[in-house]
């Protein structure tokens, strides 16, 4: 950063001031970025400070377990890992069905630290992976926005992204999920695409493919990239913005990117076979056709060109029609039209609720509500339109990409609340652009209105609002660079640009004409700062209060201090230490990952909901009467059944509240389970008005067994009602463990021998025939052998 200062020392004094300012701005920008990174990291540590350094929720536990395996057994074992702890008796090939990006990243960090003799545990590395990568993500946002609208907008966007609640919700310390690294990969891929588009450099194009590869490794959301970039390319072609840079930005990405994507086992041939990827190939062909046309246009005379066009178009149309017909026939032959369930529910929001209850049952697959937009992106929602307008003046290749990005992500976030995460970076980028442009305009006007300052602008600008001044400076600079040099900017040319800066003064003169009145611009500035402050306050609140709970340990504040509900880990620790290593534990699939990771016991179903029938079997067992349920569980070798019950302490997301989904999913495969049997007049209730089927099903019995003895009435604090059936006995299950607040109850299947009495007697009589012959002759008349 100090280099330009030295190199321009010999340049005439006219330029020295400017170069110094540039150097100063560069250093300042560097430190601002560093601080943004630190902020992005530290705002996510609320969960560690308020709770503890622990893995959160459900999916992260699986990722953590996979990382542990990777750290312990190495990469080759990891690829071949067949996990027999889940989906009993089917098992799961982890290496081939998991997006390995996150695991490999954390595993590599752990390995690196350990080879430097820094003995951090795998858990610690996993907990802090997400905050580290959100710092990276904010830097990537800076780079991307800088490519679009200059340094000032970049810094603003990076600062916004560092603390946007939507992203915080998925990347607090301990939230060790794919999205943690995927958002960084997403933004970075977009940055490299824009960078290639701006420079036309093959170097960046290659990097872009590698970044895309990393994204494919990390998250299933990579399909968003491979559809959005083709859309942008198509947009560029349609709006007549085709250039060689566009070709270089896109063609290597498709070829290299698809090849690399096919290397990831979980994607494999899907990279060329499924409909999610077809758009990219189609655009690839179109791009080549267009490139060819441009080439021909360059070599032929205009007259010849017209003839050629008519010829090619008529032939080409026929061929295209044929190819498209074949393609459509191929696609239509597959039942889901070549689309996966989740993608289909993206295109048709009502698809999941109609056909796949298991996707619909997940809360993060629901469409979001309006308040959740305000909660997750807050004031950005108002700044986004301004940002889009700013992108149109002037519209460049890069800014059109941002517009397209935000339009697409707004739609997707409206379908699935989880995809709010993809929307958040786009919102941050556009809002960053809007904010920095607004600051530009206002500070410019203030500068123009105050005559004392305009005379020696440089000095004061550096002192008063150096960051914004710098932003404006660089905004101008990049505009310049877009106009003048599209070729690869070597260091020399960068320096040249800086030396060219004085010529922008003429431009600034023009801008003065657009200046606003002094008082109104001052007030607007204050209002903008107020808006920013409101955003910061909201983000800190969201990070501290809303999104930091690890959900495996709950706290409640009462008049006598903090109360901790650590029931889940209590139950898992009990299972871990006091049951046999090979015992099978049945529970609803939500708790599968946690049980395998924390209790180290085999589960029947888990959160990777790949086998609907298996989940339906468990759902059926839970909604069957005790005897039928016992038989189902016994046939699955289950020894313990785990239920989560919140009725005593008022924990709302317990199994009774999820029970209707079990009925629906179970009934989807086994038709003898009918949802209306569990509802009284279409209402789901567990009080005395509940249906007998409901009161006799296994889930009800396991949850409320001896519950009435706690308070004498059996008052359920979640449902706010007294339970329907209070006194009953379990015939096929016995309670073996209940946690301190009753949140987890574990039952053991009673051994079968006491029930089938007749059979055991018969088999006994065969083995010990001599001693009890007299008895048999009396009772065993049915047996033809005696």
């Amino acid at each position: 950063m100090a280099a330009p200062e030295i190199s321009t020392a010999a340049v005439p004094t006219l330029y020295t001031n400017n170069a110094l300012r540039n150097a100063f701005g560069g250093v300042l920008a560097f430190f601002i970025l560093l601080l943004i990174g630190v902020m992005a990291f530290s705002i996510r540590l609320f969960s560690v400070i308020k709770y503890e350094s622990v893995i959160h929720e459900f999916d992260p536990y699986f990722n953590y377990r996979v990382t542990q395996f990777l750290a312990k057994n190495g990469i080759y074992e990891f690829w071949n890992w067949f996990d027999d702890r889940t989906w009993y008796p089917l098992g799961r090939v982890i290496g081939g069905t998991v997006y390995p990006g996150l695991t490999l990243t954390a595993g590599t960090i752990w390995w690196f630290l350990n080879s430097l003799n820094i003995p951090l545990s795998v858990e610690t590395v996993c907990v802090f992976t997400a905050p580290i990568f959100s710092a990276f993500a904010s830097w990537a946002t800076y780079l991307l926005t800088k490519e679009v609208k200059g340094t000032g907008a970049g810094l603003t966007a990076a600062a916004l992204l560092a603390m946007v609640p939507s992203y915080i919700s998925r990347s607090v310390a301990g939230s060790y999920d794919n999205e943690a690294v995927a958002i960084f990969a997403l933004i970075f891929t977009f940055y490299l695409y824009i960078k290639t588009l701006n420079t036309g450099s093959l170097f960046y194009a290659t990097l872009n493919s590698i970044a895309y590869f990393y994204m494919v490794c990390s998250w299933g959301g990579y399909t968003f990239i491979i559809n959005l970039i083709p859309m942008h390319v198509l947009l560029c072609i349609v709006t007549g913005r085709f250039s060689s840079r566009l070709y270089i930005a896109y063609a290597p990405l498709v070829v290299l990117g698809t090849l690399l994507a096919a290397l990831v086992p979980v994607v494999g041939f899907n990279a060329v076979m499924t409909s999610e990827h077809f758009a990219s190939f189609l655009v690839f062909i179109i791009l080549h056709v267009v490139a060819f046309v441009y080439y021909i246009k360059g070599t032929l005379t205009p007259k010849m060109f017209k003839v050629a066009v008519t010829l090619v178009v008529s032939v080409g149309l026929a061929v295209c029609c044929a190819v498209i017909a074949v393609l459509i026939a191929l696609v239509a032959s597959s039942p889901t039209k070549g689309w996966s369930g989740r993608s289909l529910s993206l295109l048709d929001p009502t698809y999941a609720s109609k056909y796949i209850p298991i996707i619909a049952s997940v809360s993060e697959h629901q469409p979001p509500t309006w308040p959740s937009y305000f909660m997750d992106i807050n004031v950005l929602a108002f700044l986004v339109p301004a940002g889009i307008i700013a992108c149109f003046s002037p519209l460049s290749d890069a800014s059109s990409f941002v517009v397209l990005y935000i339009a697409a992500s707004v739609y997707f976030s409206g379908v699935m609340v989880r995809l709010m995460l993809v929307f958040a970076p786009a919102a941050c980028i556009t809002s960053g652009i809007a904010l920095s442009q607004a600051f530009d305009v206002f500070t410019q006007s203030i500068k123009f209105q105050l005559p004392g300052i305009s005379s020696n602008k440089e000095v004061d600008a550096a002192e008063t609002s150096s960051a914004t001044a710098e932003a404006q400076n660089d905004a101008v600079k990049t505009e310049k660079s877009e106009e003048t040099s599209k070729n690869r900017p070597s260091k020399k040319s960068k320096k040249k640009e800086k030396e060219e800066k004085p010529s922008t003064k003429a431009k600034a003169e023009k801008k003065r004409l657009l200046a606003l009145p002094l008082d109104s611009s001052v007030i607007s500035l204050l209002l903008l700062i107020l808006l920013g402050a409101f955003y910061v306050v909201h983000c800190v609140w969201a990070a501290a209060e809303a999104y930091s709970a690890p959900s495996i340990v709950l706290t409640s504040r009462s008049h006598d201090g903090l109360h901790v509900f650590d029931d889940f880990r209590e139950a898992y620790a009990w299972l871990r230490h006091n049951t046999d290593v090979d015992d099978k534990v049945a529970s609803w699939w939500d708790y599968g990952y946690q049980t395998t990771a924390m209790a180290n016991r085999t589960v029947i179903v888990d959160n990777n909901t790949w086998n609907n029938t298996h989940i339906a079997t468990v759902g059926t067992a839970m909604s069957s009467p005790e005897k039928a349920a016992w038989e189902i569980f016994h046939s699955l070798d289950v020894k313990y059944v785990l239920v989560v019950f919140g009725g005593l302490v008022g924990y709302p997301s317990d199994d009774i509240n999820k029970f209707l989904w079990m009925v629906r999913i179970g009934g989807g495969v086994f038709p003898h389970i009918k949802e209306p049997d569990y509802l009284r007049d279409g209402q789901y209730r567990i009080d005395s008005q509940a249906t007998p089927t409901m009161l006799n099903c296994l889930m009800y019995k396991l949850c409320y067994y001896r519950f009435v003895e706690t308070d004498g009435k059996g008052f359920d604090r979640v449902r706010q009602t007294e339970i329907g059936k209070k006194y009953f006995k379990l015939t096929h299950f016995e309670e073996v463990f209940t946690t301190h607040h009753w949140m987890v109850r574990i039952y053991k299947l009673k051994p079968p021998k006491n029930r089938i009495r007749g059979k055991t007697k018969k088999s006994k009589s065969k083995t010990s025939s001599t001693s009890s012959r007299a008895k048999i002759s009396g009772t065993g008349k049915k047996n033809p052998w005696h």
Partner: protein
Amino acid sequence: MEAPIRAREILGFTLLSLLFFVCRSSPSHNLLISNAERRIDLSSHIVKVYLTLKVENAGSTPTSEILLAFPPTQVDHLATVEALVTKGKRKKTTIVHLDVKPTELPDAPNETKYFTIYLANPLNSGESTTLEVLYLFTHSLEPFPAEIGQSESQLVFYRDSALILSPYHIKQQTTFLKAPSTKVESFTRVEPTNRAGTEMKYGPYEDRPSYSFSPILIHFENNSPFPVVEELVREVEISHWGNLQVTEQYTLVHGGARHKGVFSRVDYQSRPSLNGVSSLRYLLARLPPRVHSVYYRDEIGNISSSHLRTDSRKSELEIEPRYPLFGGWKATFLIGYGLPLQDFLFESSDDRRYLNFTFGCPLLDTVVDKLTVKVVLPEGSKDPSAVVPFPVEQHFETKYSYLDVVGRTVVVMEKKNLVPVHNSHFQVYYTFKPMFMLAEPLMLTTAFFLFFVACVAYLHIDLSIRK
């Protein structure tokens, strides 16, 4: 069911004792015990035996060795033997600890094991002295019934002999057994035998020859939990920057009667006096004073149920396992804390440094089956040696921690079957040059310096081909 078993066992023991009589040998017959009193405390799961022996030298030659005999079944469970002599008159009595060492005798009847007490002054002929012996047994209370339900109380057997096993002739002896409660189901009678409340008195028995043995069996209620640490690894890491970091890894098990069948939380919470009386609800760890940054966790995270009380003399950490431990239930956890170094590290006269720290397990009233103490010395320390007041297995390891290059020497000490008596101090001596403290900061400084130099160099180099 119960009676025949006991009868058979008693029969077996009688036979055994007969054998003792038959093949008894005669080592040093010149000693005899004129009076012996034994008090056996059965109130916790560590059986404490206080033995007062009045030894008389009836022979002609002075002797300074006195033998204690134990049947082989008891020796396996014997955690420690201590002997002491009180000297002086009433006002100014002084206690002298005596050396006790296990001894092998060639002609020991029925694999009897011996411990030798070495007197400070030889006992001349005709003289007599009074010895106080304390020994502790672990795992000596056998739960019967072996499995109990949640609401049942825990009954245990204790086996011993009414007569003190000794290679010497005992003129007069009495044994007192103290049960934790008045609920004693049964006890063997060897007349004269009396029972008063919680105490049973066997004896006095007159003039019993050497190796007399008369097995007794007591079946009584003991509802105290039996906390047994199956394995404990204590790691003490010395940092010369002023901190002593201790990490203790426990595998805890309730060694009492195994839990059978249902665990009902509603019964356990509503009627705690009747349900799960023998369950292990909490443990108390006594830590050194000025302890800081205490943590208590297991492999799945922090355990929130703990309290720390500190005062100037000691710190008490009350910890609850995640769930109450019933018989046979296990739990693992980790306790870590930091201590100021100046309380534990000293400089010896020969310019070496030594760490003075407690050896045993800080949990009160627990038995430790296997203890490993690892003392991690700072990088660059030399000639480590450990001084422990009792025999332990020792070896050295190397550990790599933050920014280590050559690794830290670890002194590893292992011992089996420990009781709280073993919480005595041990010392680890080593030499260390303070220069080594600067190695790591210097390394970091150099690394950063080189990084900045590389940055400056990179900014000054123009690698582009076109000029």
